């Protein structure tokens, strides 16, 4: 899409099949990472400290220019920079495929399952699906400027949510009250009771602020960390962590596409105004938990309005400004309208396109067939199984097998994206670098490297710069440039 770079970061859950204390999810995460980098040589491990929790060998860049690494015990995949929704969906699915394939190749498939969800029903743990959107540095990154974005994000869950059984009551959340950061438990606030049957979002219960820079215990609707991973004079990276991991390609594309267009409206100063929501964090949770799916919110103007009506105002503004901008924009506008129209009717119309609707339909079908109450623990297990990446087990893949899921990309495109980067962003140049390093032979394993390699590693790769030992740093500050010829020239001197 015009003027936009997209990226997704996904933390995966690992379901261990047998109760063995020596085989924790983190133990499997290490095995899978090691298989990918040391056996399959899918990429090159970092040789340098990227941060206090990312020592050498913790993860690395892949030949598709994305990253796989361990983050707080979770396997995490960060997609390469994408300039189109097609690439964004393909590289997201490629991450799923790389990890699922690794489990099968390593002989671990009977012992562990990859679950692409965001919650643990039993412990209230949550883990993220983070979205990244590159915007101009002139983007009005102020409370007033971000007001329309908050309103859009609070209400977009009606078609981006993945749904879950029950509600979370995280006790470790901290919130900002006036100028103080206090534990939410001390305030008496928090999401609904433990007997909630079903809600449309996985992450809503875990979002406790409107704006904040932390990513744990104080997750915000808009994360305010200023880390563009690009030229900071030209760009800002909008980093969102309130969204759910989507199984449906359609939902992933619509989530990224609609959010990209709303950011464009804000950049152009044409986003709908007078839609500021009273208490947006509470509204986020109220919408998610509304069993009647009326999704009403109160505005500062005093008006009460539905999330669908709010979304339609954003859609109409985007249609006026951007229809005909490019093919992807037209696709997003058409499908945005289609989904909003269908959300006014029976939710079953959205099965296959919207994850919460697919999951709810599956659970209701099972409840009806087995005559189960919503409190039956089986439903939580089915909720997890919707996100199982094993094609023969996962319930989403079951819907796909039955032809109920519209596909936006082919399996061949996904397979290509597991190995090759997009060819119209700086991911192309980084992919060349990773291939060059792999062709030069196995890089030394971080934990066994010689002392001088620890202090002067043979390569250092970050998103916007890399350096080979003995050579000058190679900056890549513009994610819209491929740098591919410059990288090849640089490597020819190595």
């Amino acid at each position, binding site marked *: *899409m015009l*003027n936009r770079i997209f990226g997704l970061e996904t*933390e995966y*859950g*690992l*379901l*261990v099949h047998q*109760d063995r204390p020596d085989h924790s999810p*983190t133990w499997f995460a290490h095995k899978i990472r090691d298989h990918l980098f040391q056996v399959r040589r899918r990429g090159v491990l970092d040789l340098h400290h990227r941060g206090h929790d990312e020592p050498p060998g913790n993860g690395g860049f892949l030949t598709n220019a994305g990253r796989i690494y361990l*983050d*707080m015990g*979770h396997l995490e995949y960060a997609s390469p920079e994408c*300039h*189109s*929704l*097609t*690439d964004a969906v393909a590289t997201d699915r490629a991450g799923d495929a790389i990890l699922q394939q690794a489990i099968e190749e390593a002989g671990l498939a009977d012992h562990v399952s990859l*679950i692409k969800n965001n919650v*643990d*029903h*039993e*412990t209230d*743990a*949550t*883990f993220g699906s*983070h979205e990244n959107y590159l915007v*101009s*540095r*002139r983007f009005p990154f102020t409370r007033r400027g971000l007001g329309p974005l908050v309103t859009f994000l609070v209400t977009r869950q009606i078609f981006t949510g993945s749904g879950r059984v029950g509600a979370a009551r995280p006790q470790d959340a901290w919130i900002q009250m006036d100028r103080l950061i206090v534990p939410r438990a001390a305030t008496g606030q928090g999401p609904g009771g433990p007997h909630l049957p079903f809600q449309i979002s996985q992450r809503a219960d875990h979002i406790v602020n409107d704006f904040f820079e932390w990513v*744990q215990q104080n997750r915000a609707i808009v994360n305010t960390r200023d880390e563009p991973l690009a030229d900071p004079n030209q760009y800002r990276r909008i980093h969102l962590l309130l969204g759910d991991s989507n199984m449906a390609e359609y939902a992933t*594309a619509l989530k990224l596409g609609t959010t990209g267009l709303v950011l464009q409206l804000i950049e152009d100063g044409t986003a709908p105004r007078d839609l500021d929501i009273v208490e947006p964090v509470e509204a986020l949770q109220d919408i998610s938990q509304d069993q009647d799916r009326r999704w009403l919110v109160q505005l500062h103007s005093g008006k009460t309005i539905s999330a669908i009506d709010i979304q339609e105002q954003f859609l109409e503004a985007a249609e006026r400004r951007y229809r005909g901008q490019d*093919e*992807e924009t037209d696709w997003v506008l058409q499908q945005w309208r*289609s989904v909003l129209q*269908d959300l006014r009717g029976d939710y079953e*119309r*959205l*099965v*296959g396109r919207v994850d919460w609707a697919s999951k709810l*339909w599956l659970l209701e*079908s099972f409840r009806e*067939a087995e005559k189960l109450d919503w409190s039956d*623990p*089986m439903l939580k*297990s*089915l909720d997890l*199984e919707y996100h199982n990446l094993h094609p023969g*087990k996962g319930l989403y893949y079951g*819907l796909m*097998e*039955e*032809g*109920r899921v*519209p596909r*936006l*990309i082919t399996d061949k*495109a996904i397979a290509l994206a597991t190995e090759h980067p997009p*060819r*119209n962003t700086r991911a192309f140049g980084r992919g060349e670098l990773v291939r060059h390093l792999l062709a030069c032979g196995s890089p030394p394993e971080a934990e066994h490297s010689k002392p001088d390699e620890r202090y002067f590693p043979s390569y250092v790769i970050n998103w916007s710069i890399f350096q080979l030992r003995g050579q000058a740093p190679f900056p890549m500050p*513009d994610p819209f440039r491929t740098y591919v010829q410059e990288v090849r020239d640089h490597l020819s001197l190595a």
Partner: protein
Amino acid sequence: MIYRTSPERREGPVNPMPKSPSPSEEGSGPRRPEPGSPEKDSLLKRMRKVDPKQAERYRQRTGE
């Protein structure tokens, strides 16, 4: 490079989105599963294979 004016920035999508049918229109696009259909039976069969205790065993750490 100036935001919005670079030719590379204006590059269109490499693979345009497919012309997706409108699922809300009668007779086109994905249909909702019909109750009692073989497809639904197949999905129920898949669901019945799920370990009822697996949610208790999930035990994930909090991430970001």
